[in-house]
């Protein structure tokens, strides 16, 4: 039987494919999808030959800046994005962890000022697999990253 996509194609917009299934809701939060006004299709626990299960998000008429998309690298370092125009993939992109992250990641140090003051967190990339808090210098491995909780 021919395999079919379980989600419909979009005319224009952005498709994020190959999201590890368990990371889907973190991606949804990070991209603020709940506030989008255009159609968003979310596939969760889809079969994937390479990954076992995966998630996919299709956002109609939505295009992100590099800065917005690169934030995704914090939770999914090897994500692929497709930019769709007139039902065709016009650009494929992989996310790249930026040198600085503001307001995305939470510091793991409970005595860090960012956990005790209404302010944005700020991290610098530290080596290839860690972030360093701009304020308290705590180094957080990317494997242990926790995202800032949004109100």
């Amino acid at each position, binding site marked *: 039987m021919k395999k079919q996509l379980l989600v419909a194609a979009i005319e224009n917009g952005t498709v994020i494919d190959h999201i590890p299934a368990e990371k889907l809701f973190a991606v949804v939060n990070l991209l603020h999808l709940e506030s989008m006004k255009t159609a968003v299709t979310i596939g969760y626990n889809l079969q994937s030959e390479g990954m076992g299960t995966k998630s996919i998000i299709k956002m109609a008429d939505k295009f992100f800046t590099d800065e917005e998309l690169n934030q995704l690298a914090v939770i999914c370092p090897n994500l692929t994005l497709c930019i769709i125009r007139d039902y065709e993939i016009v650009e494929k992109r992989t996310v790249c962890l930026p040198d600085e992250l503001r307001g995305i990641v939470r510091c793991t140090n409970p*005595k860090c000022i960012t956990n005790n003051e209404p302010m944005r967190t700020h991290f*610098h990339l530290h080596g290839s697999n860690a972030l360093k808090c*701009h304020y308290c210098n705590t180094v957080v491995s990317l494997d242990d990253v926790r995202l800032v909780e949004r109100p």
Partner: protein
Amino acid sequence: MEKENAPHSHSARPNSLVTIADHSREKIEYLIQMAQEFERHPNRRLLEGRIVATLFFEPSTRTRLSFETAANRLGARVIGFADPKVTSGTKGETLKDTIMMVSNYADIIVMRHYLEGAARYASEIAPVPIVNAGDGANQHPSQTMLDLYTIYQTQGTLDNLDIYLVGDLKYGRTVHSMLTAMHHFHPTFHFIAPEELAMPEMYKQFCREHGIRYVEHTEFNADVISGADILYMTRVQRERFTDLMEYERVKDRYLLKLGMLSKARPNMKILHPLPRVNEIEYSIDENPHAYYFEQARNGLYTRQALLCDALGITLDDVRNDKTLIEN
């Protein structure tokens, strides 16, 4: 440990002092030269008309008195609080609001805070310079500057010294800051500590990355310290141990006794950030190697230099200063 440059909107004011890691070798030497001027003539009217705020969100009598003396001896007036219980922080006021309010009154803010990163944050939001007088377990740059000044004063140089760090090297903020600051000067470090309080791996990695030689010891005796130019003692605190049996086993192994100085180099000086409990035998106080009280006095001169530097007063201004008050 290196800091990357933040964009302008989030940058600390150029004259704020948050961490010694922001300072180059040249800047450290410049501040030492300025402190030497204040050692020659501590009493001046250089800061007359200025107001220094000392905000101690965590009590620290020694550091506060040192900063306030530095300000007073330069003719500044001092406002602030020594006891966080009297501040609006206890009513739920944010640090930002306190800093913005005090910035309306003072030309510079000296700040001690129990939260790590508080000084960096304050320096990004305050319209006046911030001098970090300690932020939790993070940074205490004025202590580091007075340590460096004392090393220079006793050795005549900061270059190529054998520096022995003893005691709590795991949690000791002063030894970490010194290690970071001394990387400009090609030292050889000796780390003498019980295993539970050994120098953390990240600082050993920092040494390797910067070509700093280091040797680790768990024994502490006359032979081990015979090669030291500087013997920097710290306190082994009971509350740092998860295993109290281990504390009982090692607590007396890191006490400096008079007899251990028999093989010391003539130029060797014993430093300690104070307060001391029992880690340096009291009979050593009279020994020519003891230098911790002079070290504490140097806190005055180095803090005078740090206040002036933060307020935009240059070494030339200090050298050409006509406001000296002769005693």
